[in-house]
């Protein structure tokens, strides 16, 4: 994380030069390009169905109409709840596991760790299609609630617990990586001082490492929150219908045959809202989290 620890927010005072007008013009042009889809989502979702007319697509709505949000919410609310139920525990658990793993790998090097670590990291790059078929069978084979006759009433498949487990497991590599890089920068002397005081593995973690881990946790939580919230393939293959997350439901809404674009755009807006809020509120950390995802930044 050497590069990422350089603060991105430093502003150095400019000296006015003629070429700067060009720079601002280019930046504003890009800005407009990036905001174009946002403009479209917002104006379309505030229109009524009658007003969603191809010829007036780019025009502002005549009046603010919240009907499409109500419609989209009606459809997506249960899935929104599912996504929250999934993302909160999955993020928390994978952050805790990542912190412990990172601590072990950064400060308790043992033989073989150099081989183990890249083998762990590989897990975050694989296409999930490559594990999907056996995963479905595996989840089905783990029974949570058996029937009296020995058959299974509730397995991990089609169940929020299965989804949480899967997201935790496939989140371990990235959370471990981020914490490991974070803890590597903690001077060994700090821990050695603690060790002299007689603290063991847990003591050092609890009294020295954990208290300075907050920034690491923020990065990991933001990263995992957005990744899990935005995930789609697992949502559509292993969640069944009762645990279906919001991305799968939005896709389904958008595939509906009589296309009500205003409702779709409102649905897209609702789906994007939580991660956008996280991003706007904690953007600085978000950037760090992103860069940590590229191993060295």
């Amino acid at each position: 994380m050497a590069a990422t620890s350089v603060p991105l927010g430093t502003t150095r005072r400019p000296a006015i030069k003629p070429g700067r007008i060009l720079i601002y013009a280019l930046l504003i042009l890009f800005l407009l390009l990036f905001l174009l889809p946002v403009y479209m989502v917002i104006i379309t979702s505030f229109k009524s169905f009658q007003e969603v007319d191809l010829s007036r697509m780019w025009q502002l709505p005549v009046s603010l109409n919240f009907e499409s949000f109500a419609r989209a919410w009606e459809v997506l609310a249960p899935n929104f709840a599912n996504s929250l139920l999934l993302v909160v525990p999955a993020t928390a658990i994978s952050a805790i596991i990542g912190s412990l793993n990172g601590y072990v790998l950064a400060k308790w090097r043992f033989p073989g760790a150099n081989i183990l670590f890249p083998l762990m990291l590989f897990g975050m790059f694989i296409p999930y299609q490559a594990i999907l078929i056996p995963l479905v069978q595996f989840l089905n084979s783990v029974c949570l609630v058996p029937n009296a006759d020995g058959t299974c009433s509730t397995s991990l498949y089609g169940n929020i617990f299965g989804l949480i487990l899967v997201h935790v497991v496939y989140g371990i590599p990235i959370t471990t990586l981020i914490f490991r890089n974070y803890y590597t920068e903690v001077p060994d002397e700090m821990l050695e001082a603690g060790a002299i005081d007689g603290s063991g593995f847990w003591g050092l973690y609890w009294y020295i490492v954990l208290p300075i881990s907050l920034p690491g946790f923020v990065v990991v939580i933001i990263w995992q929150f957005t990744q899990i919230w935005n995930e789609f393939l697992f949502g559509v293959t292993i969640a069944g219908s009762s645990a279906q997350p919001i991305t799968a439901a939005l896709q389904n809404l958008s595939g509906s045959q009589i296309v009500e674009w205003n409702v779709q755009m409102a649905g897209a807006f609702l789906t994007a809202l939580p991660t956008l809020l996280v991003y706007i509120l904690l953007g600085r950390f978000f950037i760090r989290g992103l860069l940590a995802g590229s191993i060295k930044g």
Partner: protein
Amino acid sequence: MSNRKFYALLLLTAVLLTLGIASLSVHAQDVSGDLEIFSWWVGGGEAAGLEALIARFGELYPDVNVINSAVAGGSGVNAQAVLSSRMQGGDPPDTFQVHAGSELNDTWVAAGVMEPLNFIYEEEGWTESYPEGLISLISDAEGNIYSVPVNIHRSNVMWYVPANLEQWGVTVPATWEEFVTTTCPALLAADVTPLAVGQAWTQMHLWESVALGVLGPEAYAGLWTGDTDWASAEVTSVFETYGQVLACSNSDRDGLSWQDASQRVINGEAAFNVMGDWAAGYFLVDLALEPGVGFAWSASPGTEGAFLMLSDTFGLPVGAPNREAAVAWLRFLGSAEAQDIFNPLKGSLPANTDADIENTELYNAYFQDAYTDWTTNAIVGSLAHGAVGYGEFKDGFSNILAVFATDGDVAAAQAIAVELWNEVYGE
């Protein structure tokens, strides 16, 4: 009274009581809990029909909480993928929509994951009320019946607006050859799309109408029994004609749902559209058009006297979480009452012959016409809608048509179709 007698009597009472409760539970309000109904009916007349059914079911069984899980995607293209992963994951819905024929038999029945429903048919007297041919489509060789049909659909229907045709100076073509050589050039000259076609599955839907029109019902049926050789010159001419028909269609096919394509006919952007009679549900319910005026229909070219059928049915998977409610739903679904609620909205014919088809308030001119055809025509099964060739053949064929839509190579398409047939059904 001896002990033995006493116990016998007690047993008899118990049996009678249980039977009484059982028969009560069939029609009474003992059924409760969640009932997940899985389908691909998310929009238009079909969704309206399903919702009307659910509403009436809710009056009969107020304690049942119906969960309507519908997966978007016409003809079930996405729903079947979701259902398949759920069945594999051991998480079946309580009941699900499945096309009668190959789609039911060659997958779920073959895998042994469906419960036979003969008990319902016997108790409700449906063996008399449902056409024999239809029952055989949803039964295995041992006579186990595996689903409850809710409707009969016709795939080979061509839709148009009479006033528009008049304005453009064309008539409904009697054969595909007439369409390609006469109708299509005339319409192109008038700057009208001759035929509106939508995304992939609607192209297969069109293909089967072309095949039926070119081959006739007997040779078409032979495609699925092996009596018609896929390498024959007749099949070559099917692909040739299909290519010419496709050339008369819009170029943005992949971007259109079936409703979009049907809509183009109503808007006067296109002259014809080949679609199943759920389009009638769309025209009648969603667009509130008058049959014969706002829209009109005929059998797709060259298929007069042939009825390319498909049927939406619902089955009972083994391990349905709420079997009792699912059975209650199936009993309701198969009843004449339910079929008269559903079919006028969906645009389909009731499968149950006890339904009130003579009632012209419910079933207007379109249905009367279709019903006459259903009872008199030669019946063949639809490929695009799971009656024949479901699974590997259908999906492989869908890829063949997708490639054909881009290169129009008849010889290549036919050669690969032959290969596919041999791979799936060959020795």
